[in-house]
């Protein structure tokens, strides 16, 4: 059923593609539809707002560069997501993650927590846990980390993640289960140390 819904969305998007007269118009339609998804995918990998915005912009420029093949795209959403994912991975491999980037992101995390009207100690705990989770995910093996990062983007389901990574959907689910299991083990160890 979910697959059928995805196919229906893809057909609707392809109709928009056919209506677009020029490649720029087509990419503009994609920006209106999927810019947030591209940004979130890039953010889940790069963990930095500025880098994620740059990666999303580069993603759409790459799409425009291959304008001749735009009409052959079957599912624009997963295609944009795939381009955004590869662009972000390229960026991550080209630069080493520095402590400066994480320091820049701290106020943003605090702002997010503050918005939820939590108590100060809870906010601090939430911030610490978020930083801890980021470190744990970064320490995961590559084959487990990549599907987990994509799964944190709310707009993507396991079928789409499978299409983006070009692997079977069953493999995605298996890897996600293994990743979650590893994370829970590490998290429980940390919590036990803290409370024990």
């Amino acid at each position, binding site marked *: 059923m979910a697959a059928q819904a995805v196919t229906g969305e893809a057909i609707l998007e392809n109709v928009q593609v056919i209506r677009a007269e020029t490649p*720029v118009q087509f*990419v*503009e339609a994609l*920006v*209106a539809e999927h*810019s*947030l998804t591209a*940004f*979130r*995918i890039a*953010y*889940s990998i790069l963990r930095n*707002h500025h880098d*994620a*915005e740059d990666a*999303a*912009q580069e993603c*759409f*420029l790459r799409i*425009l560069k291959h304008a001749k093949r735009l009409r052959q795209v079957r599912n624009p959403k997963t295609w944009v997501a795939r381009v955004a994912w590869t662009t972000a991975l390229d960026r991550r491999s080209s630069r080493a993650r520095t402590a400066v980037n994480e320091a820049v992101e701290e106020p*943003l995390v605090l702002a*997010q927590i503050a918005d939820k009207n939590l108590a100060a100690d809870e906010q601090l705990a939430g911030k610490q*846990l*978020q930083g801890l*989770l*980021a470190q744990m*995910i970064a320490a995961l093996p590559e084959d487990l980390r990549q599907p*987990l*990062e994509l*799964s*944190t*983007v*709310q707009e993507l389901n396991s079928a789409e993640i499978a299409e983006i990574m070009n692997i079977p959907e069953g493999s995605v689910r298996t890897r996600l289960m293994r990743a*979650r299991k590893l*994370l*829970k083990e590490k*998290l*429980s160890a940390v919590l036990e140390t803290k409370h024990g």
Partner: protein
Amino acid sequence: MADQEKQLDPLLDSLLANYADAEPRPGFETRLLAALREPKPGLRFGWLWAGAATMVTAAAVFAVYNSRLAELPPPPRIEAARPPVFSLPGTVVVRDATRHPEKLQIGPPALVSVAGVRQEVFPSPIPLSEQERLLLRYLAGTPRDEVASHAREDEPVEKTDPARPESQRPNSAEVFSTR
């Protein structure tokens, strides 16, 4: 252990949900669209590179072509047709007259070649003479009838003598007779 994992599930879910739940700065989509619409400098440089490559290729082809032209043997010389040779009989050729003045011999007649000067360019027309130019100017500026009347005046007019009797006047057959 299982209970602890069950307790951790919601915590992990909430943490993962917040992991990529980020919003871009305001105006993100506008900036994206502006970046898409602005001319790309890479494209311009691409054209420059393409132009430079074309020029280099053309220069290389020209150089190779020139070098191969230099290697080719010179084209065969086409001898011009010899002009007609006329012999002048009785021409005396003195051979080594200073050494052996006593041995004056009359050799075969020398060959004098008359090489016709070949005109490569077609001769330009001879300019009009002064009289011809005046005549042309006159013809151009004078009406045709007037020119015709002037031409008739030049014809010899037969003058009849009114005193001569009719019988003595030559008839037309006599006038035009050649005898």
